[in-house]
């Protein structure tokens, strides 16, 4: 996908696919976090996730939809791949600017360094946006399963790439 341009976006919706749903964040400018959370539709079909993305775009009227680029990742589930593809189609139909951004780009945009854990990323996001601090999970141990709500922190990181000069 294309590099993020240096265009000044007003409002951005970022989506980070997980298991059955996605983490999301809406930013209006670099410092104004409008909404955040994790959506896990009752039904696992991707169309339900798209329906929830539509609700978010109706509410927040973003100029740009960012989704995590999972195309080259073999570790991500088929659902994540499917959601990325469906989100791209949705954006085209809605005439919404769309970018698929790799997680490494989000890490670079925030840290300038790729060697940071999910938890460290979440901690930095919570530092920048204190309203997220109460949602910060404890550091994950090797035997713990993935913590779903980390996805919202990663969505914030994806959204921040729209306001960074560094692209994909």
């Amino acid at each position, binding site marked *: 996908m294309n590099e993020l341009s240096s265009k000044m976006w*007003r*409002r951005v919706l970022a989506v980070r696919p997980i298991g059955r749903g996605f983490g999301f964040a809406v930013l*209006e400018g670099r410092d104004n*976090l*409008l*909404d*955040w959370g994790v959506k896990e539709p009752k039904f696992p079909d991707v169309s339900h996730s798209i329906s929830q993305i539509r609700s978010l*775009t109706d*509410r*927040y*009227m*973003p*100029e740009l939809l960012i989704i995590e680029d999972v195309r080259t990742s073999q570790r991500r589930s088929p659902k994540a791949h499917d959601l990325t593809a469906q989100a791209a189609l949705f954006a085209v139909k*809605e*005439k*919404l*600017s769309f970018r698929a951004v790799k997680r490494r780009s989000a890490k670079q945009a925030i840290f300038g360094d790729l060697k940071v854990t999910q938890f460290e990323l979440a901690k930095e996001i919570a530092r920048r946006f204190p*309203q997220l601090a*109460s949602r910060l999970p404890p550091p994950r141990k090797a035997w713990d399963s993935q913590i779903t709500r980390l996805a919202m922190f990663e969505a914030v990181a994806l959204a921040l790439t729209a306001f960074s000069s560094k692209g994909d």
Partner: protein
Amino acid sequence: MSKRKLPEYLRSYRKRVGLSQSEMAYLLGLNSATSVSRFERREQLPDLRRAFAYQVILSVSVESLFAGVFEEVKRETERRAMVMARRLLKKPKPTSPHERALL
């Protein structure tokens, strides 16, 4: 997609301070969270007293809370003022202090 402000930012500010819809409803003097939900879904605008209550609870001006609505009202009012100004310019001379101020 619009580059304008959103009509309102009630949900954003409420989440920012960590209040649930039920808690917000109580603070606003409402019986249930249903009205808060309607305000946040833009199905209904709160009345003036509730709008001021929002300002007190969230420490954000009504203008900022309803930024998009304010921008729209401002545009429409300024447009009407321009129309009035043009009409007044066609008159022989301004007749009232208000008309003179407008010109």
